[in-house]
């Protein structure tokens, strides 16, 4: 702490960071805010909202990291968020991060920003990469053309940060008059805009500029059209716009406007950029291998297989170590309660009910943290886009998107991070589909259950076939159900696959770790309470009113539901064990041990006496499908923000499981396998 005489503090100023995806916004955001940041979601959306503060001597800046977008056309939730934030929240300054190595398309977003606000600082990031590519940019000339300050930066090396902050300060203090560059629109377009703008009621525009609003009405922008339809005072202007849109010279206004903007950018580029031969392009060399006609697919599978293998081989020892500590913690709690003179049932509930929930959540932490670290490395480096490119054709046959590949594959490990990873699928319908079918992927927890059952009931070749067939059923169901849902729930054209393949670059450790920490921390914070409540509830369900499971609520319900089990070859015990499996799929084993009153060592023998191999197989298939485990349901609810879809996810599984279980058991009996 320095003992400076504090200057008169200036008011808090809001600075928004805007830019294309992959331009290093998060690097700058982390550099500016350090540990003073918090993450939430934009209201009602599953888009992460990052906010932080940056303190200078006499001023505090509130920094908002807007989602990365190519434009402000409001084609996606991210674009809508960015556009509405700038128009409605009116940030004091927008820092527009631009990829110097891909200037033209990045400046297109700059032009769109300049239509909404003149308080823009353009930061040319990745100057080092541009230089390597042989691109030289005349900063002064670019500044003169854009009419707003331009700062060169290499965010990774922290150069240009201080200069950006000082320019932001000068803009805030009004010392930097800006004259934002605007494209000249063809005369008929400009006249139509003026006509419509004249009829707009400025107070009803939700913060947007009348000229801009008028143009969006003429372009047929969906979000603006909806806003206009909801305000009676805009009806007149909206119907005029609708009429004008049908006149021949305004018929293709969208293409005219965008064409004019890119035309202007081509002029700017010719003035400010000189190209020479750059260094060798690594990206192309890597791509020739990873998207190769023969090796492309195997390499993709290998990369994800490896990612998956690393996640679980690292997480398992950490979890075992955690498990020991948690067991000791449980012992301490029990000891404390006994010492306090509490009845033993209180200790049971506290440890087996509540503490177990905490242990469940803790068990997810290493998996999620490690997975998202690797995930961020793949995404940051640019490889993820290639993987989507390689598998898209394959996924497309089943109504899925190329980007759904990773979340689905992750489902073989754990559905919780897999459902969270579905965020990389940008189209809402595609993302929902990816989330809904994900629980059908055979996760590690179910693998534990199946290994036990297969080992108990089958030997040799039969065991191998049984295990393999479960994987085949899992993947087959994912593909078939995807196709069925795509046709029924999300009909219409397949969403487009238009995706940038950014140049490869070395992932930045700091960003990767920040990303992993946010994902894992976010899950812990939001799910810990809910999962603990649930384990407590299940404990009560299986222990109350009497101490035994048969006379508990679960037992009574199990007996009542027994008829449902008959066509599948299950008695009430198996039905009740599925309740335990809802908490964690391998939990069905512990439940069965409790119900039969044996330890897990004796469970195999008891099961063999009570079940035919056919019923055991039906039970495995039902366990695979019947419902996502509770933690996955929490993740689904968090990622869809929809009770309806979460409930649907649970329901379709139950129905499908009953149908499949019955089918297997009855057909098996007809074939004389029972």
């Amino acid at each position, binding site marked *: 702490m320095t003992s400076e005489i504090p200057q008169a503090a200036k008011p808090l100023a809001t600075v928004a960071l805007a830019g294309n995806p992959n331009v290093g916004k998060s690097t700058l955001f982390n550099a500016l805010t350090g540990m003073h940041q918090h993450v939430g979601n934009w209201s009602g959306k599953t888009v992460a909202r990052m906010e932080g503060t940056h303190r200078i001597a006499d001023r505090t800046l509130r920094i908002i990291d807007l989602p990365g977008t190519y*434009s402000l056309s409001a*084609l996606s939730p991210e674009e809508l968020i960015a556009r509405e934030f700038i128009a409605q929240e009116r940030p004091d300054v927008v820092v527009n991060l631009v990829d110097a190595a891909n200037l033209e398309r990045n400046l297109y977003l700059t032009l769109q920003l300049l239509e909404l606000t003149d308080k823009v600082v353009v930061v040319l990031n990745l100057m080092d990469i541009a230089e390597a590519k042989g691109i030289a940019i005349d900063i002064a000339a670019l500044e003169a053309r854009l009419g707003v300050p331009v700062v060169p930066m290499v965010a990774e090396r922290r150069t240009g940060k201080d200069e950006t902050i000082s320019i932001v300060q000068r803009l805030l203090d009004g010392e930097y008059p800006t004259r934002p560059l605007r494209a000249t629109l063809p005369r008929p377009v400009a006249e139509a805009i003026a006509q419509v703008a004249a009829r707009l009621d400025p107070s009803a525009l939700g913060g947007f500029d009348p000229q801009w609003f008028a143009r969006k009405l003429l372009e047929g922008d969906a979000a603006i059209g909806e806003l206009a339809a909801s305000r009676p005072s805009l009806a007149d202007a909206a119907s005029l716009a609708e009429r004008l849109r049908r006149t021949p010279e305004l018929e293709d206004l969208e293409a005219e406007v965008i064409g004019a903007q890119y035309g202007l950018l081509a002029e700017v580029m010719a003035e400010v950029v000189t190209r020479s031969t750059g260094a060798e392009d690594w990206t192309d060399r890597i791509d020739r291998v990873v998207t190769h006609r023969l090796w492309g697919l195997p390499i993709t599978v290998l990369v994800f297989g490896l990612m998956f293998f690393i996640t679980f081989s690292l997480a398992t020892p950490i979890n075992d170590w955690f498990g020991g500590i948690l067991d000791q913690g449980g012992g301490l709690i029990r000891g404390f309660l006994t010492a306090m003179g509490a009845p033993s049932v209180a200790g049971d509930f506290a440890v087996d009910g509540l503490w177990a929930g905490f242990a469940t959540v803790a068990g997810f932490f290493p998996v999620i943290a490690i997975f998202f670290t690797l995930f961020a490395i793949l995404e940051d480096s640019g490889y993820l886009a290639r993987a989507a490119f390689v598998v898209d054709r394959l996924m497309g046959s089943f109504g899925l998107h190329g980007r759904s590949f990773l979340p689905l594959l992750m489902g073989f490990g754990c559905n919780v991070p897999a459902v969270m990873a579905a965020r990389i699928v940008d189209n809402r319908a595609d993302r929902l589909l990816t989330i809904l079918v994900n629980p059908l992927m055979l996760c590690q927890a179910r693998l534990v259950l199946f290994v036990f059952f297969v080992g108990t009931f089958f030997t040799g070749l039969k065991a191998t076939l049984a295990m393999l067939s479960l994987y085949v059923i899992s993947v087959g169901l994912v593909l078939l159900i995807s196709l069925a849902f795509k046709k029924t729930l999300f009909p219409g054209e397949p969403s487009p696959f238009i995706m940038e393949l950014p140049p490869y670059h070395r992932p930045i450790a700091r960003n990767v770790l920040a990303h992993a920490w946010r994902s894992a921390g976010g899950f812990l914070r939001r799910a810990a309470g809910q999962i603990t409540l649930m384990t407590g509830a299940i404990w009560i369900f299986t222990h109350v009113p009497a101490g035994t499971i048969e006379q508990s609520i679960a037992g009574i319900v199990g007996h009542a539901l027994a008829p449902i089990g008959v066509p599948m070859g299950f008695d009430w015990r198996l039905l009740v064990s599925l309740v335990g499996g809802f908490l964690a799929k391998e939990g069905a084993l512990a439940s069965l041990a409790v119900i039969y009153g044996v330890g897990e060592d004796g469970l195999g023998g008891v099961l063999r006496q009570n079940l035919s191999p056919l019923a055991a197989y039906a039970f495995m298939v039902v366990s695979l499908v019947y419902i996502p485990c509770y933690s996955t349901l929490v993740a689904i609810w968090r990622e869809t923000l929809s009770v309806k879809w979460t409930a649907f996810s649970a329901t379709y599984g139950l129905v499908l499981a009953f149908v499949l279980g019955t089918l297997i058991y009855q057909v098996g009996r007809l074939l004389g396998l029972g």
Partner: protein
Amino acid sequence: MVAKLSQLAPGQSARIVSVGGCGPTRRRMLDLGLVAGTDISAVRTAPLNDPVEYAVRGYHLAMRRRDAEAIAVELL
């Protein structure tokens, strides 16, 4: 001669004549700089021949053939 963008073989270059289609997909293409008069070339195809990677305005873009069909080009 006018062709569809989807007919471009890897290594071939063309100039965009018009962007067809409608709605958000078309808007996305325009936003990404696929406007009339833009030069574009096909770089490579994915292993199963779809999607196709294109080079345009100094960056690379992957598109499914069915989406690229909407763009009319003249071969250079």
